[in-house]
C-alpha cells in the first residue's frame, strides 16, 4: 500500500550569549562541572529571573532569517514539573506567546525548491546535565539556564532526505547568523522528529511517533527512512502504531522505543509573574532586522552572480562558512573568483585534510593565496610551479619570494621558446618523421623535451602551439 508520510521537526538550539537566559552566570561548554553557576541557576530560594537582552536580540535575528513575524510584546510562562535536572521545579519558556510565528525555509529537493513552514520560535532556558552512574546520579548545572530557542516546523516534510535538508538548511542559517554554534554532536543543537504515516490521500492523520535527540544530519535521514519503513510494514500487516517516543540506535541503525506516551503530561503552564510583559522598542527591533549578517542564500546568489561560480562550487564553499569567509578574503586580492574557488575547494581543502588542520590553525594567509593565483593568471609561473609554491605558502610564506628563491619564472618569450623548440627538433629527427606519419603522440614527447630543456619554465600552452607550427614548417 502507498502511504503519505508526514514529518514535523522540533529543534532546540543553544544561543551563543556570554551569560545565561535569566542569570548573569557565564554560559560554557566543557568547563569543570558546576563552576558556571550562581544562585539563580541552582534555583535557590528567593532568586528571580532577569531576561538576557542579547538572547532576545538573537531570537529576533533567527525569527527574521526564518521569515517569521516577531511579537514585540515579549512574555514568558512557567512549565511545571519535578525533575533533578530542573532546579526551580519549573522551566521558564514562552508557551502562550512565542516571540516568532508563521515563517518558512526553502529547501532544495530533487523536484526543485520546496517551502517548509515554521510554526513558532520561542525562547526558554536549558536544563542541567545528568550523568547516571551505577550507584548514583551526578548533576552538572553548568548548562542549567543556558538560553535556548525552540523552532517548531509545520508537518511539511515527506522523506528522510527532506528532513535532512531542512535541518541542514536551518543549521546553516543559524550558523551564518552567528546566534548559535549549532554543534549537533555537542548538543548545542538538538533535533526531535515527529513522524506519522497515513494511506495516500487520506485526510486523517496516523499515530505520531517522536524520535528524540538525533545528533547528526545523516542520522536524521537514516532515522526517518528507517521509521517510514517500520511504520509501513506495521500498517501493511494490519498492525497499529503505538504512540511513543523512540530514539535512533547508532549500532543497529534502527529506531528503538524509549517510552510510551500514555496521555500527555499536564505542565500546568501559567504566565511567569516575575517577568512583566516587555514591550520591545520597534526601532530597536527594526535595527536588528535591518542589520542581519549575510545569509547563506544571499551569499550563494552573490557567488554565482559576482564570481560566476556554478551552484555546485557555490554550495561547497557555503557549506563551510570558515572556508567561505576565507574565500572572500582571497577574492579581495585574486583577479579571478572562479579560479580562486577552484583553489579553495580542491588545493586548499585537500591540503587541510591531508595535514589534519583547519584554517584557523594554519599560517596561510588569504592575501598570499590571492597573490599566488594572480601569478598564474599573469603567467609569471605555471600551474605546476604554483602547486610547488603553494606548499610554502601554506607555511605562511610570500609566493613571490618563494618563486624567486626557487628561481621560478615562466618563459613566455616567443623567440626564447622557439630557440628551444628548434634545438629539440634538430635533436629528434625520428619524432618529426613520426609526426608526418600521423603519430600525434610525437607532439607530446617533443613538448616534454622542450619543457625539460627550459627546466619547466616554458609556458606549456605557448610551447604546444609554437611546436605545432614549427613541425608543419619542417
Amino acid at each position, binding site marked *: 500500500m502507498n502511504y503519505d508520510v508526514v514529518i514535523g521537526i522540533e529543534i532546540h538550539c543553544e544561543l551563543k550569549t556570554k551569560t545565561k537566559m535569566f542569570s548573569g552566570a557565564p554560559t560554557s561548554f566543557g568547563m569543570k562541572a558546576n563552576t558556571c553557576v550562581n544562585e539563580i541557576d541552582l534555583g535557590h*530560594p528567593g532568586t528571580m529571573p*532577569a531576561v538576557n537582552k542579547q538572547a532576545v536580540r538573537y531570537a529576533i535575528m533567527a525569527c527574521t532569517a526564518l521569515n517569521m513575524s516577531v511579537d514585540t510584546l515579549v512574555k514568558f510562562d512557567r512549565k511545571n514539573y519535578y525533575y533533578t535536572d530542573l532546579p526551580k521545579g519549573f522551566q521558564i519558556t514562552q508557551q502562550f506567546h512565542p516571540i516568532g510565528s508563521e515563517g518558512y525555509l526553502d529547501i532544495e529537493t530533487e523536484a526543485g525548491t520546496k517551502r517548509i513552514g515554521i510554526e513558532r520560535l520561542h525562547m526558554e532556558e536549558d536544563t542541567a546535565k545528568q550523568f547516571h552512574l551505577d550507584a548514583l546520579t551526578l548533576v552538572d548545572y553548568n548548562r542549567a539556564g543556558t538560553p535556548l530557542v525552540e523552532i517548531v516546523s509545520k508537518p511539511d516534510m515527506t522523506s528522510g532526505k527532506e528532513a535532512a535538508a531542512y535541518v541542514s538548511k536551518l543549521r546553516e542559517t543559524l550558523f551564518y547568523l552567528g546566534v548559535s554554534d549549532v554543534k549537533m554532536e555537542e548538543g548545542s543543537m538538538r533535533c526531535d522528529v515527529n513522524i506519522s504515516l497515513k494511506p495516500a490521500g487520506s485526510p486523517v492523520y496516523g499515530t505520531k511517533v517522536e524520535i528524540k535527540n538525533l545528533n547528526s544530519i545523516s542520522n536524521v535521514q537514516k532515522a526517518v527512512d528507517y521509521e517510514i519503513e517500520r511504520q509501513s510494514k506495521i500498517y501493511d500487516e494490519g498492525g497499529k502504531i503505538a504512540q511513543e517516543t523512540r530514539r535512533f540506535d547508532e549500532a543497529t541503525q534502527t529506531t528503538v522505543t524509549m517510552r510510551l506516551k500514555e496521555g500527555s503530561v499536564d505542565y500546568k503552564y501559567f504566565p511567569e509573574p516575575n517577568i512583566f510583559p516587555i514591550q520591545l522598542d520597534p526601532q530597536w527591533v527594526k535595527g536588528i532586522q535591518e542589520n542581519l549578517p549575510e545569509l547563506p542564500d544571499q551569499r550563494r546568489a552573490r557567488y554565482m552572480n559576482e564570481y560566476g561560480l556554478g551552484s555546485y562550487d557555490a554550495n561547497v564553499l557555503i557549506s563551510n562558512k570558515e572556508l567561505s569567509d576565507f574565500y572572500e578574503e582571497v577574492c579581495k586580492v585574486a583577479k579571478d573568483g572562479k579560479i580562486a574557488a577552484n583553489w579553495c575547494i580542491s588545493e586548499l581543502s585537500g591540503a587541510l585534510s591531508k595535514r589534519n588542520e583547519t584554517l584557523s590553525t594554519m599560517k596561510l594567509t588569504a592575501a598570499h593565496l590571492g597573490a599566488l593565483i594572480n601569478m598564474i593568471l599573469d603567467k609569471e609561473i605555471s600551474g605546476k610551479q604554483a602547486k610547488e609554491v603553494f606548499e610554502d605558502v601554506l607555511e605562511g610564506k610570500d609566493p613571490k619570494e618563494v618563486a624567486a628563491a626557487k628561481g621560478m619564472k615562466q618563459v613566455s618569450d616567443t623567440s626564447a621558446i622557439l630557440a628551444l623548440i628548434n634545438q629539440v627538433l634538430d635533436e629528434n629527427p625520428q619524432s618529426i618523421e613520426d609526426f608526418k606519419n600521423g603519430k600525434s603522440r610525437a607532439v607530446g614527447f617533443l613538448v616534454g623535451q622542450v619543457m625539460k630543456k627550459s627546466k619547466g619554465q616554458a609556458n606549456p600552452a605557448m610551447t604546444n602551439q609554437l611546436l605545432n607550427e614549427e613541425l608543419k614548417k619542417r
Partner: protein
Amino acid sequence: MTMLEMLKNTENTEARILEAVEKAHEAHEKLNAVVTFIDPAEQIANLDQYKEGAMAGIPIALKDNVNTKGIRTTASSRILDNYVPIYDATIVKKLREAGAVFIAKTSMDELAMGGTNLTAATGPVLNPYDTNCISGGSSGGSAALVAAGVVPMAIGTDTGDSIRKPASFCNIVGFKPTYGRISRYGIIPYSSSLDHVGTFTRTVKDAALSLEVLAGRDDKDMTSSNRPVENYLAMTKGEVAGKKVAVIKNIVDAIDNQETLACLNNVVEGLKAKGAVVDYVEMDQQLLRAVLPTYFLIANCEATANHSNLDGIRFGNRKEADSSEEIMMKTRTEGLGSQARKRFVIGSYGLFAENQERFFRQAQRVRRLICEDVDRVLNEYDVFIAPASAKGATKLNEPAMDQMSDAYLIVENHMALGNFTGYPSITVPMGMTGGMPIGVNLTGRAFEEGELLNIAQAIEDVMNKVGE
C-alpha cells in the same frame, strides 16, 4: 527609642546594639519570636565603615524569609532547617550599606503562609501585650520584637496583610509600599504577584526613613520600579487640610465591635479637625466578598510553582531515599507542614489544564475587577481607610470564625486590596479593644508613598494627642 531618636544620639552605638541583643534574648524567652540570633560582633567592628549611612548603628531584625549570606535562613520551615544562603537579598545589602546592624532572624508562618504565626517550625509567636494571644502573621516575630522595644525597625513581608495585620495586633506601624518600590530579590517568596517587602516601626516617620533606605530599582528584580526614590521623611508632615479620605462603609458596616468603631470614629474626627474631608464610601459588596477566595487561588497557584525548588536535591533538609524522585517526595512530605502542603495542593489543583481557566485565570480576572473598584475610590480620594481588624489579637487556641460571614470575608481580609492593586498601604495604631491594641489601615495611590505617610502621620498625631 525610635530610630530617629537613636540617630540623634551617635554615642555608645555599640552599647546600644549589645543592649538590643540582650533584650532580644529576654523577649525571645517570653515571646518565642526569634529563629536565629545573629552575633553582631563583626558588624560592630565594621560600624565605622558605614557611619555616614542613614541607619548607622541601628539594630534591626529581619523576617526569616530574607536571605542572609552565610546566616541560616529557614522561612520557618523544617524543609529549610539547615539552609544557609549563598547570597544576600538586595535589601540586606542596602540596609548594611546604610549602617543597620542585623541582630535576629524572626519567626514567621511557614513560608509566609498564614496570618497567625501558628505554623512556624519553631512554634507560635506570642503577643507582647498578652502572651495568651497571637502576634499575628505571617511576619509575627518581626512585629513582636518591635512591639517589645527590642529593635526600632524590623523587616516583614506582606502577601495578603502579613505586615499590616500583626502591626495592628502589636500596636505598631506596619507599612508596605507600592509593588516594585522595594526589590524582592533574595526574599523567599510566597506569591510573586502579591508579595511585598515592608517594615515594622513604632512611628510613621521611622517607616518613611526606612523606605528611603530600602526603595529603588534593582536589575535583579525585573518587577522593581525605575522611579526615583523620594525624600519620604520630608513629606511625612501630618498636614491633611483639604486631603480627601474615604472610609470604606461596607467594612465598617460589617463590624459590630463598638470599641473598634469608637476608635475609628476618633480617627475620623481627628482628621476632620485637621481639615481633611472624610466621606463614607461604598465599594462593591460582591467584589469585597470575593477578595479572600481570589487571593487564595492566585497566591497558592503561584506558590506551588515558587516552592517547587524545595526538593532536597541542591539544598535544604534532604531525606535520603533510593531514587531522586523518592528523595524529592520524602523531603517535601516530611519537610513541609500541613498548612503549606494544603496550600500547594489547592494551588496545583487550580493550575491543572482542565481547571486553570475557571480557577486561576478566573481569579486573575476577578482581581482586575476588584482593582478597578479600588481605582474608582482612589480617583476621588487621596486614601481610603478601614480598621485593620474588627478586634485585637485572638487567643492562641481561639476557634476559627465563620469563614463565610462578612465579618470574616470582608472585615478580616480587606487589606489584600493593597496586594491586589500593589498600592502602598500602612497600618497605624488607633487604640485598644478588650485590652488589646487595634490599628487603622490606610491605602493610597501607586507610588504616592509620600502622601500616604503624610496622612498616616496625621493619624499618629491624633493618637498622640489622645494619649496625652
